[in-house]
């Protein structure tokens, strides 16, 4: 009996630790939940200089407490540069919560580079710092571009042909335009001067010169009828310019009316000439060469007579 009891006692000595061990295992999560756990991941682990890595820290901690991540200053971060960070939290269970801190870094330099240590600051439910813990994330390998890789990444553009140098020709163009403008200006002034000169010329002189030329043409065989037509035109031009009456667009009675108003001395002679010319032009009258010559002479006298302002 004593032996049985002893055996049972021994058995119990063996079982109790086992039971205690089992219980300790069963209770462990709750115990663990009470202690913060930190997981830090960095991706990618290999990259080119200038690219970015993302570092994610997952911190599980009891609910009611808080966690913050402290980073060293920018000088200490080199060759990493913090681009941005984001923090979020979510409850895991009734007693535990998870805090996630995502940090994005730009990476420079070359070769294996280790991220600076992260300092986790724990706060209790009253907001007081309950502890600090430092974690050192894994290193990343920073690759550098070879010249060939640089070319493949951004191929060089072929050199473009230089544009037409308009600016070089600008003085030439300006010179041409300037010359043209000068020519036009000269033409304008010449034309104006010619016009003024022609206006200044005495109509009687012009008429006399034309009558002399007409006389010469008559002598060289011009038809007397044509001579009268031209004589009429010369006289009308003279009257128009000398007396400023629209003689070229007026019929003989209209000229007669206008001249009568002016009261000029050679009125009858002028009208006689114009009527004779009308007969030749419109009534098929046929003057002789001598009659034509006489009419030219008579016209010459009219335009040269002092009463008409002729010279």
């Amino acid at each position, binding site marked *: 009996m004593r032996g049985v009891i002893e055996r049972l006692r021994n058995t119990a000595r063996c079982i109790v630790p086992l039971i205690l061990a089992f219980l300790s295992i069963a209770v462990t999560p709750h115990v663990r939940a009470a202690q913060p756990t930190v997981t830090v991941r960095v991706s990618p682990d290999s990259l080119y200089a200038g690219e970015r890595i993302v570092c994610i820290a997952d911190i599980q901690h009891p609910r009611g407490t808080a966690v913050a991540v402290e980073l060293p200053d920018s000088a200490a971060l080199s060759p990493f540069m913090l681009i941005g960070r984001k923090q979020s939290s979510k409850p895991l269970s009734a007693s535990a919560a998870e805090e996630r801190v995502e940090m994005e870094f730009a990476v420079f330099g070359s070769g294996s580079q280790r991220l600076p240590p992260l300092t986790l600051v724990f706060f209790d439910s009253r907001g007081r710092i309950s502890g600090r813990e430092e974690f050192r994330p894994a290193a990343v390998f920073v690759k550098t571009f070879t010249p060939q890789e640089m070319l493949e990444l951004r191929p060089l553009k072929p050199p473009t042909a230089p544009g037409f140098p308009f600016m070089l020709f600008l003085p030439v163009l300006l010179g041409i335009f300037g010359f043209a403008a000068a020519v036009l200006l000269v033409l304008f002034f010449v034309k104006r001067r010619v016009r003024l000169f022609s206006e200044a010329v005495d109509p009687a002189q012009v008429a006399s010169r034309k009558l002399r030329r007409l006389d010469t043409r008559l002598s060289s065989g011009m038809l007397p009828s044509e001579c009268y*037509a031209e004589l009429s035109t010369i006289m009308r031009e003279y009257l128009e310019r000398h007396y400023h009456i629209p003689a070229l667009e007026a019929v003989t009675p209209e000229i007669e009316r206008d001249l009568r108003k002016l009261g000029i001395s050679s009125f009858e002679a002028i009208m006689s000439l114009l009527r004779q010319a009308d007969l*030749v032009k*419109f009534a098929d009258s046929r003057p002789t060469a001598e009659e034509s010559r006489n009419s030219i002479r008579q016209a010459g006298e009219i335009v040269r007579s002092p009463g008409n302002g002729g010279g």
Partner: protein
Amino acid sequence: MQHAAVLEELGREIAESSVFLDRAAEQISSCIIGQKEVVRRVFIALLAGGHILLEGVPGLAKTLIVRSFAASMNLQFRRIQFTPDMLPADLVGTMVYNPRDMEFHPRQGPVFANVILADEINRSPAKVQSALLEAMQEKQVTIGSATFPLPSPFMVLATQNPIEHEGTYLLPEAQVDRFMMKVIVDYPNYEEELEIMLLASASPPLAEIRPVVEPGDIARARSLIDRIYVDSRVQRYIVDLVVATRNPAAYGLQKLETMIEYGASPRASIFLLLAAKAHAFLQHRAYITPEDVKSLAFDTLRHRIIPGYEAEADNISTDDFIRDILQHVQVP
């Protein structure tokens, strides 16, 4: 200076033959005071075989001029008062049924006369006005299937009033173009008005007019007019004037380019030449001068030029266009 013998002879004949017009003018002037240019235009149209449209405000003796003119001629005269309810058949005639032979026979209308006074022509609708087209252009009338020639001489003298628009109908362009001249009858001057007043209150003016012109006189005058000499320079001057209404810019009249919608038709050149010849006849001349052309340019061209909206907006009349053209086209 040796003048063309033919023209000298023709000139003498014209001087002798045109005496009948002086007689007629004398008769007309016994009851028409003033309006000598209007009467002269009526004579020109008669001699040139044309028709006249007289336009003037009421009371200017338009109708009296025509009646006096007709009374001085030994010609058959009919007055047709145009009214809004007129029909073409009232003018030219119609087919009338004869129960004896049970056939339709044409009955000639009042248009069958030597001188027609179409009084207030614009009071009838266009279809009645258009009934005169054939008569005026071809001197014949078609009734049913038969065509009848009109007596010679045949002349339409139409009157219209420019200020009344109520109950009037604008003459169609084709109709207007057939009038050789459109004569504007203007107010008499002070002295003429005084004389008119005394004359009208004294006795009936038409009672004294005797017919002094025979159809033979007119036919002979027309044959002489046909022989009137027209120099090529004058011919070109006429064409220049007419073409200038269509293409004013070519004659230095750029400002008229947009003012004139349509220029004068070739009928203008024809009528201007015919009228100028008749005008020369009245002057006892055997040749025409630019003066003949110029003096008739307004009456011959004014109704053939259609002004554009710019001209109408600026109140520029066709007479202003013609004045500009006459001042720019060089006289030969």
